[in-house]
């Protein structure tokens, strides 16, 4: 594992190091399957013209899952309160919109900044302590925000939500229509840009050091990696991403209500990421697609049974498919490849 770390490898005389560096560079390149994946939203645009609202919900949930993947899948920080940042982003846009500053891009930037600021501040609470106390602290922060939003009804509208959020056309050109067509295109573009940046990030030395921290936090300081600073940075970025996701939701719906901060949202998000497979970037996106569509189909039948299936999926994933969709698929591919190799090896001498 040590040779796959790029730090200092170019000058390293070790023969495996060059190969490792090469492999590392190749892993950062876009693969055909990824190009294919990003054709999906374009295809969906033409294939399901009546479902833009559902589609943009998928895009927003994907972005939200991506933000958690950065801090959980890569840096290994467990969070049960990620909705806090989502909510801050949504309320930022809501406040701006109801005070006449409805420009969408300005809203995105400010929402990201507000959520990132909160993430930066609360990240210091997470540097110490075990997984369990991180879990409780993130949960506690999210609950505090929920209570604040619940009680300061004059600002947030409380349980009834914040009406009269006015969102102006994007760049002054594209007005949000009631079928969600513009909203969908807008969400997908934002998702893609942020995904592209996240992909660059995790394939950079910075991203590699995050993986190192997740695997062995005691060893990384010895390699010269400032662990705490890295964790604070990635938590801030993840929070900013979540803020953007919340902002997108508020803009496409032109409405903000208390449920953007709810515990259910944090728990659902964790489920999405675990279902898709954490630490792959695409895991969250796949999980979001499956989750939102399943939610749409199942809760049509009965919203209360939906929660039952949700719980069942969680239990089954934990017991039988720890890597989620992507992790399990990768295991299958690898084991079948190994089987093929061992078969070839036993056949070749004969």
């Amino acid at each position, binding site marked *: 594992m040590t040779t796959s770390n790029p730090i200092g490898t170019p000058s390293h005389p070790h023969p495996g190091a060059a190969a490792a560096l090469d492999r590392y560079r190749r892993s950062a390149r876009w693969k055909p399957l990824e190009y294919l994946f990003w054709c999906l939203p374009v295809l969906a645009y033409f294939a399901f013209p009546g479902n833009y609202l559902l589609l943009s919900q998928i895009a927003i949930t994907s972005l939200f899952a991506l933000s958690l993947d950065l801090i959980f899948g890569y840096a290994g920080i467990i969070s049960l309160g990620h909705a806090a940042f989502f909510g801050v982003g949504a309320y930022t846009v809501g406040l701006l919109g109801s005070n006449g500053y409805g420009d969408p891009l300005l809203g995105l930037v400010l929402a990201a900044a507000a959520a990132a600021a909160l993430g930066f501040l609360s990240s210091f609470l997470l540097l110490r302590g075990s997984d369990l106390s991180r879990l409780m602290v993130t949960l506690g922060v999210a609950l505090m925000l929920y209570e604040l939003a619940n009680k300061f009804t004059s600002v947030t509208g409380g349980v009834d939500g914040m009406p009269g959020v006015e969102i102006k056309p994007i760049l002054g050109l594209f007005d949000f229509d009631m079928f969600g067509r513009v909203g969908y295109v807008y969400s997908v573009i934002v998702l893609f840009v942020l995904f592209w940046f996240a992909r660059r990030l995790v394939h950079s030395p910075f991203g590699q050091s995050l993986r190192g921290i997740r695997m062995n936090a005691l060893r990384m300081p010895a390699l010269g990696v400032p662990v705490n600073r890295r964790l604070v940075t990635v938590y801030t970025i993840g929070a900013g991403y979540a803020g953007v996701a919340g902002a997108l939701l508020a803009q496409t719906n032109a409405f903000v209500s208390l449920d953007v901060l709810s515990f259910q949202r944090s728990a659902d998000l964790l489920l999405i990421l675990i279902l898709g497979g954490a630490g792959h970037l695409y895991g969250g996106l796949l999980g979001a697609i499956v989750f939102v569509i399943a939610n749409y189909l199942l809760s049509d039948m009965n919203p209360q049974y939906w929660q039952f299936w949700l719980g*069942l999926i969680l239990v089954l994933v934990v017991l039988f498919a720890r890597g989620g969709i992507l992790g399990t698929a990768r295991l299958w591919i690898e084991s079948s490849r190994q089987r093929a190799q061992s078969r070839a090896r036993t056949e070749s001498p004969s």
Partner: protein
Amino acid sequence: MTILFDGIAAGMLLFLISVGLSVTLGLMNFVNLAHGAFAMLGGYACVVLLNDYGVPFLATLPAAILVPALAGIVLERTLYRRLYAASDLDQVLFSIGLVFMSVAAAHYFFGAQQQPLHLPEFLSGQIHLPGVDIGVYRLFLIAAGLAVAVLLQWSVIRTSFGARLRAAVDNQRVARGMGIDVNRVFSLTFALGSALAGLGGALGVEMLGLDPEFPVKYMVYFLIVVSVGGSGNILGSLYAAILLGVADVAGKYYVPQIGAFIIYAVMVATLIFRPHGLFGRPHK
């Protein structure tokens, strides 16, 4: 004074429910967020017997203890056991899954409404003393809480089962080598934790209410009690629960605008400055 008294009673109730969690989380190191689901099961057992079959309130309590205990044993044998060695995250996800399923199941069987509970004559009413109004039921709660605390502390420290449990937790392999049936000890302990939850749930219907959202609504409170009290520490949980109860009741009475905010803030602060709880000691 009345507020203080009500706070102590609320704290006792919290203690009754969360001490079960303190046992499973603290002694067995299992992050069981589904603890509230067992409490809810106890509550429903009590309410159903009381309202549909006319069983007197006190006579329903054994059922409220037994039903969750049995459910606990079955779940422990089939599911929980597989996850003892798993990471905290897996345990959390697994138990959140159980919570969701239990909420949906409660919706299905009992409907979304609050369950009514009629206390018997001798437990309702108030005693008026100069300066204090004492609800009889609250007095009863305090007595029950103290009884459970004493019994539990005694059984963990003094009985041979308690000794075996502590041995199994401290070093499983050696405990097995000494001929302790660790699996059985864990099963029984888990059943004990669930039974305590059920008892707390049944006693709490009066004060906390009972509806399908119960496990989610109060999950955080139980976790706070355990984390502030120091996990596995029965007396610590008692102090923390009383503190929390008084703070909650007083906070809601004096500064209702802030509501539950104070409690969450206290929890976060405690976890930052005393990661092992106010009364806890670091794990070996």
